[in-house]
């Protein structure tokens, strides 16, 4: 112990203290502070960059999910539209068919009506002609009667034969 402290030198202690403290202060100003600041900044930068990358990745995923969703929606919409179009088409065909049927029925009915009325008119005319013819015949018969009985009879017969054709 005595040797230990016998070797103690005040001068060396003094210089060590002065130089060491000066070194601490100088290095703090010119080395440790800039070095540690740079390292901290760099670490901060790396951390931020990693975070940003993570965020970008998440955003990308969100975007992709959105896209997927949109695509799905669009597909569903298309499906819907197609279905609607098909329905409309069917309905239109159905309607057209119904209308055509109606029209046809109506036309047929009109035609039938027309035929009926034509028939009636024809009948009426026939009747009137028959009456006329009958009168003519009767007239001629009457005239013939007055002249020749046989001849009159023959005439009636021929007249009747003619009249049958009608």
């Amino acid at each position, binding site marked *: 112990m005595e040797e*230990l*402290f016998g*070797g*103690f*030198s*005040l*001068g*060396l*202690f*003094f*210089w*060590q*203290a002065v*130089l*060491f*403290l*000066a*070194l*601490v*202060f*100088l*290095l*703090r100003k*010119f*080395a*440790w*502070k*800039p*070095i*540690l600041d*740079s*390292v901290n*900044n*760099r670490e901060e*930068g790396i951390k931020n960059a990693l975070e940003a990358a993570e965020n970008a990745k998440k955003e990308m995923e969100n975007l992709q999910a959105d896209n997927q969703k949109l695509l799905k929606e669009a597909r569903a919409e298309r499906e819907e539209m197609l279905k609607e179009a098909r329905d409309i088409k069917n309905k239109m065909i159905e309607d057209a068919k119904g209308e055509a049927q109606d029209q046809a029925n109506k036309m047929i009915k009109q035609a039938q009506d027309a035929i009926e009325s034509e028939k009636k008119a024809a009948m009426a005319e026939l009747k009137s002609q028959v009456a006329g013819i009958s009168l003519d015949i009767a007239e001629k018969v009457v005239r013939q009667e007055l002249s020749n009985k046989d001849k009159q009879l023959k005439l009636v017969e021929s007249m009747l034969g003619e009249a049958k054709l009608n």
Partner: protein
Amino acid sequence: MRKKIAFKPVTLLLLLITFISFAKEDVKHEESGSDLKTEIKEYIQHHLLDSYDFNLFSYDNGEKHFGFPLPVILWDNGLKVFSSSKFHHGETVAEAGGSYYKLHHGKIYKVDGPNGEIIEDDHHHATNQKPLDFSITKNVVLIAMVFAIMFFMFSRMAKSYKKNNGMPKGTGRFLEPIVLYVRDEIAIPNIGEKKYKKYMSYLLTVFFFVWIVNLFGLTPIGMNVTNNIAVTLCLALITYLITTFSGNKNYWKHIFWMPGVPVPMKIILAPIELLGTIIKPFALMIRLYANITAGHVVLMSIIGMMFIFNNWLGSSLSFLLAFVLGILELLVAALQAYIFTVLSALYFGMAVEDHDHH
């Protein structure tokens, strides 16, 4: 036998060049075969001491020196500055401003006159007056060198960050993981995420300072700064002062009035805890000092053994051992820096800890 002895000083020179930072100054070489063991022992002891000149190595049995003198600064009724070359490696008395000084066991003592002698008491302690000594010794030069190296290295590293958009370049690439290690493995776990920042300057400086200084101690030119108790005391004292001044209410409460124990125990614990605050940095001081000193003593003893064995088996085994130990010392150099920094951080952490759980 004669041939062997003549051979020894030459081999010892090689040892000097590689490991001994300064040579014996006052060894009186005796031609009649001096005891090699004592010689080596003295070498080791001198290696562990500080010196007033920067000797790289000596030759011709310590009579010729290669190096340069350093300024001696004394406060003895006024400031006295002179070159250490005036001591002539401890052989002569130096005169400055009318006073006379002499080196004795690596320390400067005042003597009466140009031919003054050191007067020793019964315990071989010099009784002469010791002037206040602020000399630039070899260790101070080394501390200044480490100062310059660290400042150069780390300020350049800081600049390279600015130039490269926050990325280090060159040495910074190597140093950055170490700086981050100090921050992430030493400061943050011991002090806490919130408060570690203001201690970082001290922790980083002390870590690199102790490490580099220890590494210098292992180089051929180097001397071991941290085996001076003055240096480790200075570092430990700074740790102690920072701990004491950053101690919060909780810290002092745990020292003077330990919560959760009965009152009589509190009274007994207070002085123990108070003593503990001083013992902790004291242990820091001794640990660093003792580890480096012991490492050097053992390493140099084993190198010395090569010359004592002086046969192929013993010497080569010693060489192998010294080599392995040298590598171990490299580890110890870093380990002691780490331990000093971790314990300092731990003490700071204790001082600023919030005891929420009580």
